């Protein structure tokens, strides 16, 4: 941070904490998606927090999550000294890290039915997607990022996220066609 009076500096530090603290979990989720491991994700988030802290004066106050995820993406690139498209979250990674049934808060029985019914077909369909399309799908539909936040992670325009997401969903939907038919009427 630049040189400022002590009260102003203290206020900035508090503001930084208030901006960042609610986003730590999503930063970790995205970082784990990028790196593939919890330990590497923590390293990446830690370094990203340091860089964000140094850059707080340049933050305009809007869209803190997108700002932080952009820093996570750039930090990852810098840490690995290589530029390559980020292929977020191989579906196998998601599947492999899925905890045993019942080890987390139990979803409603109907939701369990929907998930289990689609489970195998969904994995096959998403594994078969082009990594660019899969990344958009995973960020928006699995990690629940907005279009703008996903665009920040992937370093592409929002329109590109929308286009990739649309193609990914349409391909998965078509691939799951028969399964969807059998689950007709099971959703609320």
């Amino acid at each position, binding site marked *: 941070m630049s040189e400022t009076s002590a009260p102003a500096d203290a206020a900035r*530090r*508090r503001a*930084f*904490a208030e901006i*960042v*603290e609610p986003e*730590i*979990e999503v*930063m*970790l*989720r995205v970082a*784990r998606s990028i790196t593939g491991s*919890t330990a590497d*994700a*923590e390293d990446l*988030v*830690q370094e990203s*927090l*340091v860089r964000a*802290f140094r850059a707080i004066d340049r933050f305009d106050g809007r869209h803190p999550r997108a700002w932080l995820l952009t820093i996570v993406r750039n930090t990852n690139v810098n840490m690995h000294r290589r530029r390559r498209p980020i292929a977020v979250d191989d579906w196998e990674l*998601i599947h492999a*890290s*899925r*905890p045993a049934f019942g080890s*987390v*808060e139990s*979803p409603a029985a109907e*939701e369990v039915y*929907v*998930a289990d019914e*689609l*489970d195998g077909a*969904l994995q096959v369909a998403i594994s078969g997607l082009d990594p660019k399309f899969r990344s958009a*799908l995973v960020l*928006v*539909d*699995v*990690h*629940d990022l*907005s*279009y*703008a936040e996903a665009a920040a992670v992937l370093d592409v325009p*929002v329109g590109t996220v*929308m286009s990739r*997401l*649309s193609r990914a*969903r349409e391909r*998965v*939907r078509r691939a*799951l*066609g028969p399964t*969807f038919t059998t*689950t*007709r009427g099971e*959703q609320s």
Partner: protein
Amino acid sequence: MSGALRQMITCHWTARRIQRYLDADPAAPLTPGEVTRLEEHLATCARCSEVMRQHRLLHRALSLWSGRRPVDQASVDRMRAVLDDLVDGHQR
């Protein structure tokens, strides 16, 4: 314009907007007029309403995956500690 052709055009128009309608993302909102036209079409078109149902089901299934693999709370706590150190001036 025949009724069938009009229906086909509206189905195409709807298909291009269903995902934006479901996502309701602030970066790409539909206008109130678009929402009304889309909802009116869905109420009368079985094919498009089935596509809508399938997109909802797909999104729900994907969301359930997210709910089953929460971030390790210990990781969150460690990063909070890093944040506290930064804010308190104890780190770099």
